[in-house]
């Protein structure tokens, strides 16, 4: 969808884009590293007996769902780093909005994700507003859904992101994350 312009937006609303299979299977090592990073002692992730009884075997923390799609920092044969929310970057580029922030996001959790799963995802642009001016600058808000399925085709999660792409009207406010 690179090279889109304002007139192309309507045709992209609701369209599944960037169907992608994760570069690697869901793995226990990242589960432990993530739990360690936030000192999460939930026995579902540490005690196989508890996981067997409550969740029918080990699962990954639900909030990790996007982790399984962040591309390797480098991979053979790839000439530019992968971008995890490509529709967002397409909109920035296509609409000529060099800066962007994510104002809020929602994750809805369905089937549990398990070590060994090979997840697939696609992105769906849900909406784009007309130009608006905020404290940050002038630009547009958009909503992008990211849907995740497992190798059996079961929905495991849907993330919805609200982004604001804009042209700067003043120095960016300290503490905001530019993405």
């Amino acid at each position, binding site marked *: 969808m690179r090279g889109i312009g304002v007139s192309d937006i309507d045709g992209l609303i609701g369209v599944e884009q960037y169907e992608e299979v994760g570069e690697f299977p869901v793995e226990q090592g990242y589960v432990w590293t993530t739990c360690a990073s936030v*000192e999460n002692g*939930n026995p579902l992730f540490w005690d196989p007996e508890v996981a067997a009884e409550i969740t029918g075997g080990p699962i990954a923390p639900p909030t990790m769902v996007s982790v399984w799609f962040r591309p390797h920092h480098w991979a053979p044969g790839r000439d530019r780093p992968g971008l995890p929310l490509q529709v967002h970057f397409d909109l920035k580029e296509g609409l000529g909005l060099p800066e962007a922030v994510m104002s809020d996001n929602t994750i809805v959790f369905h089937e*549990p994700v398990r070590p060994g799963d090979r997840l697939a995802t696609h992105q769906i642009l849900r909406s784009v507003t007309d130009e608006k001016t905020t404290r940050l600058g002038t630009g547009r808000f958009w909503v992008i859904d990211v849907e995740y399925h497992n190798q059996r085709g079961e929905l495991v999660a849907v993330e919805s992101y609200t982004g604001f792409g804009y042209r700067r009207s003043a120095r960016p406010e300290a503490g905001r994350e530019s993405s």
Partner: protein
Amino acid sequence: VTVAVRRLLHGDVAVGDALSELSYPVTATTVVLGALASRDWRPMHHDKDFAVERNGTHDIFLNTPNQAAWFERFVTDWTGPFGRLGRMTFRMLGSIFPGDTMVFRGTVTDAGVDETGCGWVSVDISVSVDGDAKTTCAARVALPLTEDDNPWERRGGRWAP
């Protein structure tokens, strides 16, 4: 279930209940470990010079995916492993830096049983530094109605998060 784990039941919860506060001193290690654990290689989460020069912040800062992991931990510390997250909505208000003490607080805002017989509670959570909310999270989590109930056994039309 034969294993002994913490198990918060739906009937133990009332609107207005407060979750136990969690206070945590953030270091550069917290930020870098969290970024790499979530496979977020962007430099503002590990390179202070980049964060200062490019983002205009005074230091590296916690990334969003790792904050989600913190919120999950905060909720399931309260519910125990039978608690099953249905949805979380995050709002980013400001950044969290090394040297900050971040404080998680949560309040129950709703409790009910849906048409499939699943017990739900809603919780408003914030993580703040020096009293300023940095990120808020509205979470909806399923809790067992009885000792024999287990939200994780719900699938398809019986799971309506």
